[in-house]
């Protein structure tokens, strides 16, 4: 039986000063549990060589009954719990990295950390292709029982979490702010979805901590730290994704890079990484094979991985349109040119194929063959 969420109020208090993880871990090594540090700070007997004067002052300031009461309410209201690096549950993979987080807050099922998990990252302002790819790959991995870890930001992060949920495995989100805050706020539905499907939200920031810019590249080390390997879907050359890659390299993790359209600036970073020797993959199967996880049992009740059921065209027009579309994305105008069909006929043929799920319409009056049939 777990303790009530209010019992973690001293964890929150200790984390609220945003001290360097190293300082907190030194304090914890000395005092074992946050409550002991609280007593020491309140009585003023804390060992001065373990903490900077500024840090001490912040902790002291927050050590009021009022503050504690407010924090207790926050913790209980959002059901936020915590553990420290002294606890047994603390993942061993984190212990081995640089600047391991001393305290971690979480919502949801902590058992997720025991599973096989992969990190999936990419741009927030992502391309349509990138989002489709991340959703598809996350879903296929998830069907093979692999959980996806990402940052619950917009773009690729959101698509990865959603894909994982769709595939049936729980997903893990590492956020860059207190767990009582959803950032970006539009992801509130995704957050609920993650928790409903047995997922886990995790953060090193105390409840109430705002999403400040520097939190995000810093929390990326936890995303990669928790995962067996890193999957890069979409990265510009100077981007947060590249900091994740750096963390993964420091931690000695494998890096899989999705080869996007070489002409698209969205994938500049991907191609740089591939040139530098990152692992190339196009499907979930590639990753599973490289990691030696091919015999991972599939989640029961789901279709097998990459089970594209071929859609048979039923009229000659549909056949022409499908064959015209086989090389990739085309605009209406280009399809009309290749198929030599009247606009009215082509419009209705496209609808038929869309309804059958054989093709999909993209913004910009573009069409392509649907590669994520399920």
């Amino acid at each position, binding site marked *: 039986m777990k303790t009530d969420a209010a019992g973690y109020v001293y964890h929150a208090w200790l984390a609220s000063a945003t001290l360097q993880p190293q300082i907190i871990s030194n304090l914890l090594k000395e005092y074992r549990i946050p409550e002991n540090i609280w007593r020491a700070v309140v009585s003023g007997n804390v060992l001065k060589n373990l903490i900077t004067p500024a840090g001490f002052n912040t902790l002291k300031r927050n050590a009021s009954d009022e503050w504690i009461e407010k924090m207790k309410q926050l913790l209980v209201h959002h059901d936020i719990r915590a553990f420290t690096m002294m606890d047994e549950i603390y993942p061993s993979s984190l212990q081995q990295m640089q600047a391991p987080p001393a305290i971690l807050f979480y919502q949801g099922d902590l058992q997720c950390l025991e599973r096989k998990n992969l990190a999936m990252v990419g741009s927030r302002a992502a391309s349509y292709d990138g989002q489709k790819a991340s959703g598809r790959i996350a879903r296929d991995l998830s069907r093979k029982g692999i959980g996806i870890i990402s940052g619950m930001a917009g773009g690729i992060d959101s698509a990865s979490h959603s894909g994982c949920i769709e595939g049936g495995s729980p997903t893990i989100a590492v956020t860059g702010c207190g767990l009582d805050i959803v950032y970006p706020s539009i992801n509130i539905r995704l957050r609920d979805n993650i928790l409903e499907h047995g997922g886990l939200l995790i953060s090193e920031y105390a409840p109430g901590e705002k999403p400040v810019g520097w939190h995000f590249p810093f929390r990326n080390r936890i995303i990669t730290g928790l995962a067996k390997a890193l999957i890069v879907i979409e990265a510009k050359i100077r981007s947060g994704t590249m900091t994740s890659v750096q963390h993964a390299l420091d931690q000695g993790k494998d890096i899989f890079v999705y080869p996007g359209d070489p002409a698209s*600036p969205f994938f500049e970073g991907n191609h740089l990484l591939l040139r530098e020797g990152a692992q190339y993959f196009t499907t979930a199967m590639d990753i599973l094979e490289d990691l030696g996880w091919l015999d991972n049992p599939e989640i029961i009740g789901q279709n097998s991985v990459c089970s594209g059921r071929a859609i048979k065209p039923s009229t000659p027009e549909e056949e022409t349109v499908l064959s015209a579309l086989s090389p990739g994305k085309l605009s209406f*105008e280009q399809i009309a040119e290749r198929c030599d069909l009247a606009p009215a006929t*082509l419009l209705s043929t496209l609808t*038929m194929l869309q*309804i059958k799920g054989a093709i999909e319409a993209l*913004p910009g*009056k573009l069409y392509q063959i649907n590669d994520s049939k399920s």
Partner: protein
Amino acid sequence: MNEIMARTLSFGVSGVNGYPVHVEVFGINGIPGMEIIGLPDASVRESRDRVNAAIINSGKEMQPKRITINLAPADTKKEGPSFDLPIAIGVMIATKEIIPDPDLQTDQIALFGELSLDGHIQPIAGALPMVISAKENGIRDVILPDKNAKEVACIEEMNIMPVSHLREVINYFEGKDTIKKQKQISYESLKNEIIVGTDMSQIKGQKAARRALEVAAAGGHNMLMIGVPGSGKTMLARCLPGILPPMSFEEALETTRIHSICGKLPPNSGLMVIRPFVAPHHNASVSSLIGGGQEAKPGEVSVAHNGVLFLDELPEFSRSALEALRQPLEDGIVTVSRVRKQAIYQSSFMLIAAMNPCPCGFYGSTKRICRCTPQETRRYLERISGPLLDRIDLQIEVDSVPVQEINTDSPAESSAMVAARVYAARMIQLERYRGTGKHCNAQLSNAEVKKYCTTNSEASFLLDTAVESMHLSMRAYYRILKVARTIADLDCSEIINSAHIAEAIQYRELDQKYWR
């Protein structure tokens, strides 16, 4: 006896209707001067100086009398310089500068025109409603500026006498000369001279959008185009007046009337034969769109009556301006109420709107990268309210692939060819809705959609499947049926089949991609 008196006839405009104005001139000995009463506005009051100079420059003299001019009815506010001519003639008759031909009934000749100081007669706004009102009041003889003559030339049984100088009018009243009558120009003969600004044959590529435009024209449907900058949205919209069926005489009269009172008719132009194309800028105020001002003048929606209102950059229009469009879109009229005046103007137009897919404009472009965050894009799209979208049947995306990349060997169809198909489809609709007060598919209510849009079983199955698999709303369901009705009419088919439905679904692509 020193009193002198004369009476002439003119017309004023209130709303879109003319009304008779009796110009009474009374003179008496005293300090010389001229006073205009009968609620004149500044431009009418300044008339006395123009009249003074014009009379002298026409070789007549201004008698040193104290002159009062009354514009009856005295309780209606008079505006505009069109009373210059009747005032000048009235003054000259009263002061015996003109001894009228005894055969003429001087107060039964309608006079209007603005005078310049040298006696030339300038065109005026509102000539058409004034002449129509003259006819209704049993007046046959009308003297008006020659540049307004063509505008009114289509009105039958009128004796229109165009003049260019005050001297001609003086000679006419004195019986020294006649004025050459304006020949009547029939509406049919005007129609033959139609020159359309933009022809469909000038548009390269854009096959899907061309087809959508044809469907919109055939059913009178409002349309929203979404596309990257420079994809040709404005050009497509400009083609629409050329493919819509020609205006009937009544429609032309209604539209010309509004343009006449707004002073928007170019000089020497006749009745309008081409449907108007009105494209207000997106910073337009509610009053300029709907109508307003102290005198409750018509706005752009009325200027677009029987024609096309094109709103480019739709989300940039103020929210209040867009919401104000709902009454005219629904009822085809606008009520403009002001403290001094209330007017109802006809405003039945086709709305063609265009917008970018996101604030930077390049969402979905293959050439440029969109720099907008998803939130920015969503906020941009949400500026268009549901009720307004509800009145737009066709929502299409304009192809973003540049024309240069498409091998267009075959020349594009001309407007005339498209117009012929549109006309045929409109005829089918007129026949179908005879006696119901409707004349095109766009006007159908949801109940009428069920009545008139009969589908075969295959088509209704397809529509149900599509609604489910594409997550379409009930709103979209009725729009699709309505548009499919038009597509079937273009196909001369009484029953809507699955191909018609499938095509109509393509005209709801924004529901699928943007407003999900």
